[in-house]
């Protein structure tokens, strides 16, 4: 159990895990997000959708502390977040994958996923230099967990392959593995199915739902494939030009006129 798991241990499934309050973010004159508020409940799959440039990725970047909004507050586990760095947020139990794969290309699959365990490892430099003893024990303990993830994602055969050599679909899977290795409380997925064929999308959807049910992880997902999003998410937020235009269950979103107009398209008479 690391710091993030402890921090969220008081939050029951269904209770509010993260709350975004009146966030506004701009880069110079460009407004990326305007007065956006929503919450994420523990244990749900929360989708963030919207047309290109709607501010979805910026939203994720705000959640994991990469962007600092000019206005608004982020509440996580009942605490208001004050200017902390992305790596500290990782220690609070938030992990993510990226829209464009951001794996460590020179390292093997195993090393990539092991890096995801860094928030669970604490052997100091001296004991790592000596290796035998504390550092080795810690390495083996975490390796055991990583092997479970490798099993779960069915990537045993590429364990020691440098990730730069893997095909796109597998790289996406390794990246998911790296995020899962952190045992996150909240997992942010930025277009995990972009560029995949139907079969790969099915696999990925299965992994996401399994993660939710097996590990009880809360998931926030950005995805363009409406069929997939409506199927796997419990609730959705719809953004358009940096503003929130819809929030609710898939059923509500389907019937939301503003969303239909802005995003799903007005049916032609």
């Amino acid at each position, binding site marked *: 159990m690391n710091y993030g798991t402890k921090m969220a241990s008081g939050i029951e499934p269904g209770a509010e895990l993260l709350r975004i309050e009146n966030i506004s973010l701009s880069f110079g004159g460009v407004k990326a997000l305007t007065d956006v508020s929503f919450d994420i409940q523990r244990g749900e799959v929360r989708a963030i959708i919207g047309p290109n440039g709607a501010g979805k990725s910026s939203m994720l970047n705000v959640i994991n502390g990469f962007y600092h909004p000019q206005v608004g507050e982020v509440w996580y586990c009942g605490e208001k977040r004050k200017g902390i760095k992305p790596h500290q947020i990782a220690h609070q139990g938030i992990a993510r994958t990226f829209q464009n794969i951001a794996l460590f290309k*020179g*390292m093997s699959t195993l090393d990539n996923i092991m890096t995801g365990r*860094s928030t669970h490892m604490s052997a100091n430099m001296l004991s*790592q*230099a*000596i290796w035998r003893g504390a550092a080795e024990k810690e390495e083996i303990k975490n390796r055991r967990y990583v092997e479970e993830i490798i099993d779960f994602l069915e990537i045993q055969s590429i364990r020691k392959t440098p990730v730069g050599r893997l095909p796109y679909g597998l790289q996406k899977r390794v990246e998911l593995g790296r995020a899962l290795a952190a045992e996150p409380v909240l997992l942010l997925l930025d277009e995990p199915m972009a560029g995949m064929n139907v079969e790969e999308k099915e696999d990925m959807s299965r992994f996401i739902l399994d993660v939710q049910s097996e590990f009880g992880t809360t998931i926030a997902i950005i995805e363009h494939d409406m069929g997939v999003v409506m199927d796997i998410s419990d609730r959705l937020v719809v953004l358009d030009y940096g503003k929130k235009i819809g929030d609710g269950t898939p059923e509500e979103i389907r019937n939301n006129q503003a969303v239909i107009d802005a995003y799903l398209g007005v049916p032609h008479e």
Partner: protein
Amino acid sequence: MFYRQAGDFKTTYRDDIQTFPLKQDRWGYYIVLAIAFLVVPFFINDYWTSAVMLPFLIYAIASLGLNILTGYCGQVSLGTGGFLAVGAYACYKIMTAFPDLNIFIVVLLSGVITAAVGMLFGIPSLRIKGFYLAVATLAAQFFLVWLFNKVPWFYNNSASGQISAPERSMFGFAVTGPNADAPVRYLFCLTFLVLLAWVARNLTRGRLGRSWMAIRDMDIAAEIIGVNPLKSKLSAFAVSSFFIGVAGALFFSVYLGAVEVGEAFGITQSFLVLFMIIIGGLGSIFGSFAGAAFLVLVPVLLKNIMVNWLGWPTDIAVHIEFMVVGGLIVLFLIAEPHGLAQLWRLAKDKFLLWPFPH
């Protein structure tokens, strides 16, 4: 056929993460160690020690250090010469201030001091990357050399501006000074190299090493996964400078005996060590050894061929040597950008399948 993986099963993770997972590699390593420690000292003479073995051992330590910083952590440094100088001068100051202190500890302390200086000059890396960082470390190179020239305290006000190593011994054998025997000097440096290579391997295979490589490959993703960039970059600078400081201390006290900072630790040293790790292989422990061996041995070999064997005049030989070594470096970078370590890896892969590649 003789060298193979088949049948070498691992049943524990501990077996799987060892340095030499293949039994044959492991035995090869033990044999090399045994020869280096038990056989070579009996056959080594002054020429071999001074011309080949000591430079190789010491540059291998420096290459390991720079490889940790540049190869593993991706922070390009051109300050190696300056950090070698810090190691040398720290060694000299400690030797003269505490004459009774064991030389082994003196060398380690020189490394620690260099680590502190290295961390100081590593602070810009938190803001700048790539070429710009290289230029910032270049400033370290020139500043440090200037400092050791300018402030007489560093060379104890000696008239020549040189520092020279007094005699210090270990277990009754002189290690430094004019009376040190070749085998003793060799063994002293070899011990440091083996110890530090072991440490480098341990650091690079664990959490710290992975955080370095993560910073090298994709710093933003590393930070979001929970790697603290400040800690990993500064630790890389510290460890790297520790290695280079030890190399500098040995370079001064055991190898040369007396140095003048501008001559011994100029910018050419920085480039030499950088070439070693590029030719040997960035991000590889073996590569550090291979690169150091290559750039130490090839000039000696060429000189022996041209001067002793063909009887050419020395000055011509030196110039041809420059051209040949330079040409070889270019050739290497074109043919195998990942260095000798990659060649070695490919050769091993081929050999694993030999003689039935299909």
